[in-house]
């Protein structure tokens, strides 16, 4: 067992972990954050996607030992302090992009990272952005719509912040 310390949704936390314990398991079982899902455990479906230092990563492929000193955001960390929905999950809800919802947290976190890097994405970039996130319910169409809408909202908000 080794000790790790990292930032989890804004809080500094520590844990005793087996070095190659998958981070999905650490989040779900040690921290009770069940929003990150194990869909395959092999980095193929993206349901376990979290943000590590702002980058989207498959938590199932991330050994807990590598979390030390890093900043982690899970779906539970996206809610605004007043409890309102972050613009990305808001866009997913409003666009009808949520059916069974199992893939949704992973899709959302991937989108948060994607839109930070590409605030004005083309349709092709949007389609490719979630190539590592599988969905069996929606056929991706409304998810792509949600990403487009979220980009516009975030751009609008960014514009509004400028003096």
């Amino acid at each position: 067992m080794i000790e790790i310390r990292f930032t989890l949704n804004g809080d500094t936390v520590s844990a005793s972990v087996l070095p190659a314990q998958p981070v999905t398991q650490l989040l779900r079982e040690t921290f009770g954050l069940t929003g990150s899902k194990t869909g395959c455990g092999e980095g193929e479906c993206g349901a376990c996607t979290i943000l590590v230092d702002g980058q989207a990563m498959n938590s199932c492929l991330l050994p807990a030992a590598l979390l030390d000193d890093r900043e982690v955001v899970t779906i539970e960390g996206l809610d605004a302090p007043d409890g309102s929905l972050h613009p990305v999950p808001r866009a997913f809800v409003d666009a009808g992009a949520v059916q069974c919802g199992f893939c949704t947290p992973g899709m959302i976190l991937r989108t948060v990272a994607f839109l930070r890097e590409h605030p004005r994405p083309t349709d092709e970039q949007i389609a490719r952005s979630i190539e590592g996130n599988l969905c069996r319910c929606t056929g991706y169409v409304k998810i792509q719509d949600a990403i487009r809408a979220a980009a516009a909202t975030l751009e609008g908000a960014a514009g509004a912040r400028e003096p």
Partner: protein
Amino acid sequence: MSPFTQFHAPRTLDAALEILRDNASACVLAGGTDVMVRVRRGVVPAERTTLLSVHRIAGMRGCRRENGELVVGAATTAADLGREPLVVECAPILAHVADRLASAQVRNAATIGGNLVNASPAGDLINPLLLLDARLVLASSQGRRTVAVEEFFTGPGESVLRPDELLVEVRIDVPSPDRIFRFQKAGTRPAMECSVVTLGLAFTPTRQVLERVRVAFGSSAPTPLRGRKTEAVLEGQRATPEVVERAARTAAEEVSPISDIRGSECYRRALVGAFVKRLLHD
């Protein structure tokens, strides 16, 4: 079930090499995208109880230009390669292929070193390195050695890397701006494809003749393969229909693909031939 009882994350290369020297069966961890799959499948050999992570070693990640060489640290991720200005400028084929590896999530973790050491004939990043005549620097507590990427692989999943060695960097002579690189991969997806067949082509067009031709095959042989016979057909030639046809046929014969769940041998040979023609289409 995690088999590792010992974990090290040294901050210097020397410290890492000492650990490797003393633990011949240590498992090296870079991004985790290969190691964690093995852990999950329970196929990590029982004697590998030590996990050695490279993520803290100074200088292992990142790119720099040293005179005419592009030097890429082995812990540089595929995502880094896709956006690093130096790579995009000096070796755009590497950036292009890196950006089509698996998914964004995997690209943020997978490293060029990991891709090389995993030594899969399907390793996407390896193909452009063959085209770039890359050299791999292997370090151990006894010193360093440089191996041409073409000579690194000995079989599926096997390389000349010794148990006490660490792959530390990849060195590429920056190609001249007029050198042409092309890459083709099979399948219906831009990325997320465990390759059926990939083909890379590089050449310098000199007065309409192809010079310094490099052909690299992926998923077409037990190792990533440089197609020297195909290169010989093209070297110094103009890409006329007859030459292209001959190159395609030679390539289809030069590879030795297996039949597996992703594709049959026959189909893979046909794809190789088709891709050669496609990449030569000026």
